[in-house]
């Protein structure tokens, strides 16, 4: 995939998170990845790797420290993608 459209990134993230999260939370851009979704850190890291491949980018770990919500993750991906 080479798309850099923020909305499409959000859609892909929500879709993937939906299948990973155990809870019945309705996932939106504002969903907090850590506190609202009961996804363990191993699954989350695997998801990040999957996303990295889907967009052909590497997400630096330091940048992830500032990410709380789906929106923030999508913005980060979009920013890295457009810089590459």
């Amino acid at each position, binding site marked *: 995939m080479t798309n850099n459209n923020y909305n499409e990134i959000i859609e892909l993230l929500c879709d993937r998170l939906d299948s990973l999260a155990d809870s019945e939370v309705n996932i939106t851009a504002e969903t907090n990845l850590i506190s609202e979704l009961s996804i*363990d*850190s*191993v699954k989350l890291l695997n998801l990040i*790797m999957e996303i990295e*491949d889907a967009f*052909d*980018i*590497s997400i*630096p*770990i*330091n*940048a992830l420290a500032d990410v709380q919500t789906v929106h923030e993750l999508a913005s980060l991906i979009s920013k890295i993608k457009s810089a*590459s």
Partner: protein
Amino acid sequence: MNLLEKLDAAAAARKAMLPEGVGAFGIPIEEVYSATEARIGKRRVLLLGTNNYLGLTFAPECIQAAHKALDEEGTGTTGSRMANGSYYGHRALEREFADFYDCGSGIVFTTGYQANLGTISGLVGRGDTVLIDGDSHASIFDGCILSGAEIIRFKHNDMADMEKRLRRLGDRTETTLIIVEGIYSMLGDQAPLADIVELKNKYRCTLLLDEAHSLGVLGETGQGLVEKTGLQKEVDFITGTFSKSLCSIGGFCVSNHPQLDQLRYVSHPYIFTASPSPATIASTRAALQLLREGSHLRRQLWKNCTQLYNRLAEIGYQVGPEPGPVIAAILDNPKQALQIWQRLLEKNIYVNLILPPAAPDGKSLVRCSVNAAHTTEQMTYVGDSFANLYHEILQS
């Protein structure tokens, strides 16, 4: 939640994993008898969870050298390498490390942890990139954080993933430091150094290899993975620790790049800490000599490693990808890992217990560290005990 309440919450999570009374972490060693035996509580136990790979903790040469330095130079240097803490011994040890690796220069740090912190944060900074293995030791990770460089991880020992990430870096690879370890401390597996060197050259990066667990263990004279693979000239910087096969505390970095020396002026973990005590340096110098001449110790070590690794695999335990001085039984269930750890202690065997998130992939590890002072009989006893527990705990 205030600061103290946060600590309470973390303590509660830890206690939920470990039942009351189980002191798997920070277990008190009451007396040490030898390189392989100690007293824990009332038990005389076999030590199978130390990093004493060559079994040199009581080597008379090292003890005598330490005594002499203690008598002649006192208990501590009371100062930084930068100020009053560079004695003759510190400088001699640096020359000896440089000579051992046939490198231009070497630097001694106060711990191996600081060797990584100091080397990494001295080499890279904001705007640079570090590409590190996903299973990197905390000292590597912390060094990267301290440096301010962008941290990118590749899947443990996965060269396709590493290359993918190098390619994605584009022209930033020239300011990228790749960091790998000779032997990984969780599963005891080795880095595929020849492939890593090939990629490093193809993408024109700089390579740092941490030989913490491979020093004294791999290669004819014990240099580590560089010697085993014959790639001494291809690795830019080598770090390591005195706290494992050299049986003291401290760390080092060696390199053929003369720029290494500049680290002494910019690296906070080198400057803003006191230098190792004279006795520590003296015993390390004696141990390095024994290590270089210790092919017989390496032979015994590897005999023990292979014996125990094969036995655990035969019994049916999931083990790491190859034998090494670190041999881990990998378990999915932390409760079973804890049970095995406890029952081994009841059989007078001390090993390490590693629970998530410290172990890779959410697994739990019952980890043995083998050394050259262990006997074949001891390895057989350990193997038998693991076999009994396999039936008792995993097949019940």
